[in-house]
């Protein structure tokens, strides 16, 4: 933390801030440092790619940021609110309102239609049925699936499933969209389509953090954070100039 960063905070709202974020796993007598103290800041409308070799802690970091998991140590401040110490229900609320999570394996309810899958976060937000359906339809339209609302996941292609998952992540208007290797299960052509969707979302103001292995994908991000052995190896803020101008 230095003065310069604070200045930027005021100019360009920080929505995620971590200090010494640590996650340990105990495997028998061995302690695995999945995250060994991560400090980072993410501002509104950033598009960040997280890279690093397998096992470097990328997913662990995403799960912590997404409030799916709780850190062993360290601080995590989301929209000015320290997340540690929140109870289960408050974390559920944050996952519901502030976070949109896109998984490598889609994680759709297999027996539910695309529309119902997208409605799910709205159901838990307590939004009335009519408004819910309208929002869910709009979200599906955003990812070009307006004509697939009643298809079940197994009636959709991989790319379509991931777009349903993106619609679900977006539908409650989250502060941040998290995607952990969203194209990991897709062929390169479909990956390309999905990346376009993310770019459009970013262009319309969405903050995005994405884990990816592929350099050509990471190149589209404004900033690449590389993890190694649970630590940040480098911040490659190649779009610094652009960000300073925002």
């Amino acid at each position, binding site marked *: 933390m230095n003065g310069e960063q604070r200045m930027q905070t005021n100019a360009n709202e920080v929505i995620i801030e971590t200090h010494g974020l640590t996650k340990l796993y105990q495997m028998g007598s061995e302690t695995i440092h999945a995250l060994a103290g991560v400090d980072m800041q993410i501002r509104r409308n950033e598009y960040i790619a997280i890279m690093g070799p397998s096992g470097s802690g990328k997913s662990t970091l995403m799960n912590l940021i997404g409030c799916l998991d709780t850190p062993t140590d360290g601080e995590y401040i989301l929209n000015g609110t320290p997340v540690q110490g929140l109870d289960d*229900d408050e974390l*559920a609320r944050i*996952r519901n309102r502030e976070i949109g999570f896109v998984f490598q394996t889609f*994680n759709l309810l297999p027996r539910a239609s695309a529309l119902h899958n997208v409605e799910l*976060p709205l159901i838990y937000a307590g939004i009335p049925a009519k408004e819910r359906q309208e929002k869910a339809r709009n979200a599906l339209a955003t990812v070009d699936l307006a004509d697939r609302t009643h298809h079940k996941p197994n009636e959709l292609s991989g790319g379509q499933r991931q777009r349903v998952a993106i619609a679900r992540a977006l539908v409650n208007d989250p502060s941040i969209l998290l995607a952990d290797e969203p194209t990991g299960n897709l062929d390169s052509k479909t990956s390309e389509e999905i990346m376009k969707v993310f770019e459009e979302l970013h262009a319309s103001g969405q903050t995005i953090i994405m884990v990816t292995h592929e350099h050509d994908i990471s190149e589209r991000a404004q900033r690449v954070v590389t993890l190694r052995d649970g630590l940040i190896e480098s911040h490659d803020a190649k779009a610094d100039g652009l960000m300073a101008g925002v």
Partner: protein
Amino acid sequence: MFVLEGIWIALQQVWAHKLKSAFTLIGVIIGITFLIAVITVVEGMNRYVQEDFAGSLFGVNTFTVVRRSRISTGAETQERRREQARNPDLTLHDVQVVRSAVPDAWRLAYSSDRGFDEVSYKDRRRRNIRLIGASEGYEALQGWEVTRGRGLTPLDERRGLKVAVIGAEIEEKLFPGLDPIGKEIRIGSQRFEVVGVWDKQGGLFGNIRDASILLPFSVYRQTFARDPSDVDQISVKMRSLEEMEAAQLAVEGALRADRGLRPGDENSFWIETSSELLDTWDKIVRVLFAAIPGLVSISLVVGGIVIMNIMLLSVAGRVREIGIRKAVGARRRDILIQFLAESSTLSIVGASIGILLGIGIGKGVEAFTPMPASVPPWGIALALTLGVLVGVGSGLYPAYRAAKQDPIVALRSE
């Protein structure tokens, strides 16, 4: 919303696995079927006993003097029973005492009866019948309607005519397609001329009256009575309940005086009324209703345990679903409610099937007996409430297990 979700998921599962669901729900189905069947039958019997049976057996505003109580209420002591066993037989002298005690009786009749082997007409026979030797007016007092021919008359009695009025079942058996009036039937070694037939009662209690043969008392006494001085019962019918109660007291007093009983002595006879029968019926109903909770709760507990196991399996197979729901913002209580709704729906489906089966059994009883099947709304409400209770009770632990899943662990499963 997730209540609907739970209900919807449960209904889909029941529909998709009909046979498995039937087995899953068998405990609840049996318990509720039993509950509803008993309630239906007892309520129906209740109405029947109150509206028809008591009236048809004893007649309205009627009381009957007998040697000792024929209805065991279960309340008398051993000693009381032994004492009653020492009561003297009623005789024609007692009939005179009763007659002079209630000169304003609307109807008064006395009778004796016994079971008898068979009655025959030519080569047709009906076995296991009842012979009733009765004074004139007996059928009317019983409320039996002679539909063909005539009833017994004082003349039959005085002349000792060998005439008989027969029940509908006997007519059907001996005279299919024939007119029984004027035909000679054979009872034991004696021949009797059929002079009348009374209406059929049918059903469960119909045997008593439909398989009976009525003979003039004097003829019965000479031919069939085991002890010729015996009168089994003396019945008195009055025009109103108040008159009946007054007449009952008068008869009681007259018989006591005639027998020389002192103030402290128990009656050496017994007076039956329809209200006595109704009291007894009330007691039977109370015993039945007291037995239901035990039997029903056993099957419901078993049913609940089965549902609980099914729900545990269901939760175990849907950990990932739970993870997904939690990842998009489901709170513990949302998951809890979803699974409780699911188990309750299962249980209510079982209860509904039980209600239908129970009503079916009630309707079956209605079809084969004169009793109306009567399903009171409170019975259905009770069954549904029990269904919800079993569902919530059996779902609680599985739902709790589901609700406390850690989201990240749940998402990693499978």
